[in-house]
């Protein structure tokens, strides 16, 4: 029963927001609802940790026929991290977003994103997964263009077209798969594939289409172009939300599909996935170093860090998958927090151009600390959470005898450090250039002057990053257990099909 609640709670909030339009204090209700969602997902994680997996069959139809919602350890962790990211974004938006955007349904569509994301994490049926993707994408299209600045409209046209194409590829793959196998339940498909022994070659077109769909959604090389062209255009809190949630859903689905289906044809998929991972890491980080806009640098780093997760998936050992899961969770939190700091800089200075900024450490030391924590967690400095993630991944790579790939990952880490240091030097450390007069744009004065909620949101995220790094052992143990159940899909299949 609890499995379905992370989907229903955002829906209830959306209905509330639709029916009660002229209501004051909607931001506080949104924060309260997202807090409730965090509590729900904590409960879900506890419940899953006790029993291993819980599922619910929609409409009480038995498994291969009805729609399954299933939470195993991996998806429960993802739901928890997504709800934390979402709550931070909601709290942050109280003092960072203008009242015009707030009153035109920002909160309603944000909860639409949350509903889609939670649904995709919990879906146990591929067409249902597509529907949740669309729920998430529709809400994100609207948030991307919400407000209607020229840049935003341009960014959202690019974002919209490429994401729609990825959806079409995905759903075409589902159609072909259904035509061949006659089922849509993920466990049932995996069961049928196992019964085949070797993967029949008729299924390859469907899986290739699905893989490309996920790769576009997850912004892997060579399908990443929509991301840096659109992520820096909407208001900072929207970017933070997108960076924390959207691409990660594509990667989550890739991991789920790889462990259930693709790995049964490992000699074809494993080199492909590793190649895509290495290219994403290297190309993402190299293009990031050449950028001179705060949010663009961070956007390119999304591509690079998604590559790390896919690399851990490509190793396909328990350690590699555990590292990938840990890194995915860490990246959602750290990346969101880095974007939240970018939003604060934007609010104070009115620009995010690295060349014209400076002196931020002297003026706002607390926020410099927040940036330091999240950025150097992304770069992988101990004792922050990113260090644990990268350590697990590289160790798993060396153990799985992919030494060269592990070395590449290590070098990519240096480049990440380089561009984080670049942001640190340019924004926080150097003196403001003399001749560059920074003017805060006047149209933004609808934004509240207060920054208290922003500080709380970002501070809480920074605290989580530090705690996840210092007390990493229980989290890593949890991730290892999640990886064990991912690497043996029989458990998942039996649970869904036989209820055991």
């Amino acid at each position, binding site marked *: *029963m609890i499995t*379905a609640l992370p989907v*229903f709670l955002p*829906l*209830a909030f*959306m*209905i509330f927001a*639709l*029916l009660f*339009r002229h209501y004051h204090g909607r931001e506080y209700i949104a924060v309260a609802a997202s807090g409730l969602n965090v509590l729900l997902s904590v409960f879900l994680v506890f419940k899953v940790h006790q029993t291993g997996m819980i599922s*619910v*069959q*929609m*409409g*009480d139809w038995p498994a291969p026929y009805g729609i399954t919602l299933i939470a195993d350890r991996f998806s429960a962790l993802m739901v928890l991290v997504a709800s934390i990211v979402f709550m931070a974004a909601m709290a942050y938006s109280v003092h960072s977003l203008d009242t015009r955007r707030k009153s035109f349904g920002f909160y309603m569509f944000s909860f639409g994103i949350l509903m889609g994301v939670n649904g995709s994490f919990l879906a146990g049926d591929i067409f249902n997964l597509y529907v949740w993707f669309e729920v998430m994408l529709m809400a994100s299209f609207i948030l991307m263009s919400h407000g209607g600045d020229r840049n935003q409209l341009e960014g959202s046209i690019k974002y919209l077209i490429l994401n729609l194409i990825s959806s079409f590829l995905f759903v075409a793959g589902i159609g072909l798969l259904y035509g061949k196998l006659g089922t849509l339940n993920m466990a049932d498909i995996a069961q049928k594939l196992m019964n085949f022994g070797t993967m029949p070659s008729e299924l390859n077109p469907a899986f290739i289409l699905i893989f490309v769909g996920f790769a576009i959604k997850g912004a892997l090389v060579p399908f990443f172009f929509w991301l840096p062209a659109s992520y820096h255009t909407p208001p900072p809190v929207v970017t933070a939300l997108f960076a924390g949630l959207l691409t990660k859903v594509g990667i989550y689905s890739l991991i789920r599909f790889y462990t259930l289906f693709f790995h049964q044809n490992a000699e074809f998929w494993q080199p492909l996935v590793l190649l895509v991972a290495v290219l994403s890491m290297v190309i993402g980080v190299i293009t990031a170093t050449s950028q001179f806009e705060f949010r663009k640098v961070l956007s390119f780093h999304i591509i690079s860090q998604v590559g790390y997760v896919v690399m851990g998936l490509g190793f396909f050992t328990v350690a590699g998958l555990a590292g990938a899961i840990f890194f995915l969770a860490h990246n959602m939190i750290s990346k969101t927090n880095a974007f939240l700091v970018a939003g604060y800089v934007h609010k104070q200075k009115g620009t995010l151009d690295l060349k014209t900024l400076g002196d931020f450490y002297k003026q706002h030391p607390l926020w410099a600390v927040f940036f330091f924590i999240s950025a150097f967690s992304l770069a992988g400095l101990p004792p922050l959470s990113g260090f644990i993630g990268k350590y697990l991944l590289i160790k798993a790579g060396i153990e799985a005898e992919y030494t060269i790939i592990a070395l590449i990952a290590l070098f990519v880490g240096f480049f990440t450090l380089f561009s984080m240091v670049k942001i640190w030097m340019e924004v926080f450390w150097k003196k403001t250039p003399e001749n560059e007069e920074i003017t805060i744009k006047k149209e933004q004065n609808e934004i509240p002057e207060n920054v208290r909620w922003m500080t709380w949101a970002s501070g809480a995220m920074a605290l989580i990053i530090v705690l996840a790094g210092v007390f990493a052992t229980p989290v890593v143990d949890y991730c290892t257990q999640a990886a064990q159940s991912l690497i043996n899909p029989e458990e998942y299949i039996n649970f869904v099909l036989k209820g055991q």
Partner: protein
Amino acid sequence: MKNLILEKIVTLFLYIMVGFAFFLLFRGHNRPGGGFIAGIIASAGFLLYGIVFGSEKVLEKLRTNPRYIIGSGLLISFIATILPMMFGNPPLTGMWFDVAGLYLGSPLLFDIGVFVLVFGVIVSIFTNIMDVLKWNS
């Protein structure tokens, strides 16, 4: 442009379409039909009405903002979804009651919600497009 015959016919047509939509909605309980198609047909009636009279008249006829129609449709479907959870069944489980010889169930409630939702969404889409394009005003 004012055209008396067209206006009368369209008004008549509106009532026929809405009546037919209700017929399809209740037919969908055990036969082909259902909430989605009924919503489409009802909103097609209003679309014709809007083409002739303009979007303000459609909103006048509805007496409310389409937003509230969408919201209440979602609410009805949502109630039908979570109602079985109160009785310990998984969400969306059909619950059947014998009401005075009629065999009714929560799927009917869900379908009514879908009808209201689809109707609201399509009316909202075309009134907005008509407003933007300044159709007939």
